[in-house]
């Protein structure tokens, strides 16, 4: 009963807090809502007419939705890069950033689930996956593993910060014995969610572009580069707009994580390019389509080289200490964008091209697809803004339980 009363009070106070703010905040939230409404209409069109309103086909069965899903699972997993030093290595410099990291993880996971749901041909049938009332093909289907690990990771990243904030809301200290085991679990779980997502593609021998041993590790490297890069940008914005204390030292340490991950990502890219092009076989044909075009079809060539260029330049900036200090934000934005291209549709779409019998059918997302995609990103931003404001509000004492 006590728990319910305090929770109700927490929700009420948080609601009051997030519905007030300066003009810029209201403009931001209104714009996001407008984008989400447009996306909702676009989704209605898709539900009504079927997925034919997208650019996907029997030849390219997955497109913008699954590309974004794949990229965002990585961003969600990257929260562990802040959780690990904070709770396990007890590096106090990360302590303030970890709450933001977990907020990014939750927002990214909600986006992931939204992208999967809008990609489904029969979303009303998703209950078929629930064991007991449906039939979940575990352990054979990697999708069954993915559903389990993503939901579990969401649960961890909601309950642990919720418990900590719930305690702080009351002015108490959170009990370490309660949340540390969950935190340790979430570190391994984060690696798990992204390896499992990689295994979705890695296990398909029908698609040689994905069927290689490096896909899983590459996913981890690019996730630990892109995720913390986004977190650095967000922490910069939080420093500018709130009184929440994020030190230079914290951002400096996170940027080291991003640097190393970006470098490893590049090494893996080189390894991939070597394997595909040193002695090209029939299995290299998708890579050839992606990087150089095939028989006049080269829709993805400008995208992938732009992505690689962004990654290389960003990694270079991050590697040189003086540049990392001066150009950190621009490097992070470039890295985030480059990895979004390279791991999003620069990975998913070429897996399908050429088709199983060598047929080349290219993919272009439709307006409906783009509208829904942007709306889901707006949803993520919306959710994150709320979580971050509530979290920071409680930490700074703006939201507290009145005795």
């Amino acid at each position, binding site marked *: 009963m006590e728990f319910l009363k305090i929770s109700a009070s927490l929700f009420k106070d948080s609601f009051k807090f997030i519905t007030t703010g300066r003009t810029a905040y209201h403009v931001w939230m209104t714009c996001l809502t407008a984008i989400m409404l447009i996306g909702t209409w676009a989704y209605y069109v898709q539900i009504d007419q079927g997925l034919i309103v997208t650019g*996907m086909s029997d030849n390219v069965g997955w497109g913008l939705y699954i590309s974004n899903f794949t990229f965002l699972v990585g961003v969600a997993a990257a929260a562990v890069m802040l959780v690990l030093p904070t709770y396990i290595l007890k590096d106090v410099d990360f302590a303030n950033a970890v709450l933001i990291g977990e907020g990014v993880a939750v927002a990214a996971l909600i986006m992931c689930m939204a992208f999967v749901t809008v990609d489904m*041909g*029969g979303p009303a049938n998703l209950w078929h996956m629930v064991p007991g*009332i449906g*039939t979940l093909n575990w352990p054979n289907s990697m999708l069954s593993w993915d559903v389990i690990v993503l939901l579990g990771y969401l649960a961890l990243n909601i309950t642990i910060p919720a418990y900590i904030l719930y305690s702080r809301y009351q002015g108490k200290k959170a009990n370490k014995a309660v949340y540390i085991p969950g935190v340790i679990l979430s570190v391994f779980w984060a690696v798990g969610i992204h390896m499992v997502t990689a295994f979705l593609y890695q296990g398909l021998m029908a698609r040689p572009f994905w069927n290689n041993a490096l896909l899983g590790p590459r996913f981890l490297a690019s996730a630990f580069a892109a995720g913390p890069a986004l977190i650095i940008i967000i922490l910069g914005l939080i420093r500018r707009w709130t009184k929440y204390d994020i030190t230079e030292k914290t951002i400096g340490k996170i940027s080291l994580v991003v640097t190393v991950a970006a470098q490893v990502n590049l090494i893996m890219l080189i390894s991939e390019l070597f394997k595909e092009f040193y002695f090209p076989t029939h299995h290299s044909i998708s890579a050839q389509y992606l990087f150089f075009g095939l028989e006049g079809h080269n829709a993805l060539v400008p995208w992938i080289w732009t992505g690689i260029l962004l990654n290389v330049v960003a990694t270079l900036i991050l590697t040189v200490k003086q540049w990392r200090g001066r150009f950190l934000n621009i490097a992070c934005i470039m890295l985030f964008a480059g990895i979004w291209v390279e791991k999003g549709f620069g990975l998913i779409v070429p897996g399908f091209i050429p088709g*199983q019998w*060598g047929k080349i059918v290219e993919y272009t997302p439709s307006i409906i697809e783009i509208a829904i995609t942007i709306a889901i990103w707006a949803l993520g931003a919306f959710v994150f803004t709320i979580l971050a404001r509530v979290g920071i509000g409680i930490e700074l004492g703006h939201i507290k339980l009145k005795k």
Partner: protein
Amino acid sequence: MIIDNLKKLQNLFNNGIEHSNSEGSDGIGQVFEKKVDRRSSLKALVGGALATTALTGTSCSDNKWQEYFKGNYKLMTDDERLATIERLTKMYSQRTGNKINLSDKKAIPGTLFGYAFNVSKCQGYGDCISACVEENNQDRDTQMQYIRIHEMDKKNGINFEMADDTFSHEVPAEGHFYIGTQCFHCENPPCVKVCPVEATWQEEDGIVVIDYDWCVGCRYCLAACPYDGRRFNWKQPNVPEEEVNKEQHYLGNRLRKKGVMEKCTFCVQRSRNGKNPACVEACPTGARTFGNILDPNSEIRYILENKKVFRLKEDLGTEPKFWYYMD
């Protein structure tokens, strides 16, 4: 108005069936007086929440709710299978005024179906493709076809990358030969392995089937198939009423809906009744052979034992039950 909204909601989530005009009054009785199993419980929960609309709902919309909440066909009891067959038949006749013959015939024991394709005989006519479409009720608007015929240049040999499967000229073209592909009904099917809800599985007679009502439309099987065997309904399939083949099987050529996968089923509605698939019947050159591999006297067994047969992408370990040979 609530009923109209409820019907609109159903359509939005696409139970795949249009409105009906018939009236009925036993909605609540059918929902609450059934024996309680997991599906009934789930249905009763929702039925309870929508009690007011269920009271005045038509028997057609009640059929739709029961269809929505039914389980995986693989796990249904014989009674449950009969019930869904009855509902589907009833809903079809309410919708169109016509009758369908919907079978749920199981695999015949001692049967394992296999297929052989004589590359020398195929002339690229494509009679197999059109017969298949007539037999299996695919969407006409997108011209969905289970079978592909690849035209290959004799200079290049069997090379799928250089082949053309969208030709539309007079056949056979000079200096070319033809190879047909479709779902190969693998003994080790990757599509079955990846389906998250077990909506696709291999039956005892070797046919890989799909429960169209159970499929969630994730298209993972589409990604996993190395042979371009699977087709997705990107829109609500449209088959003109007079062209609908009314001899149907639940796992075969019954009408599908948007957002679900389908594919060649070795014409399960025919093959389990001792007939050949439509493609085998239609081929004028006799290039296609179908039969029970376990029957030592079958033509397919003769071919497998005496001809120099090969399969495609053998190294992938899928064990397709579709052999090629040249005579």
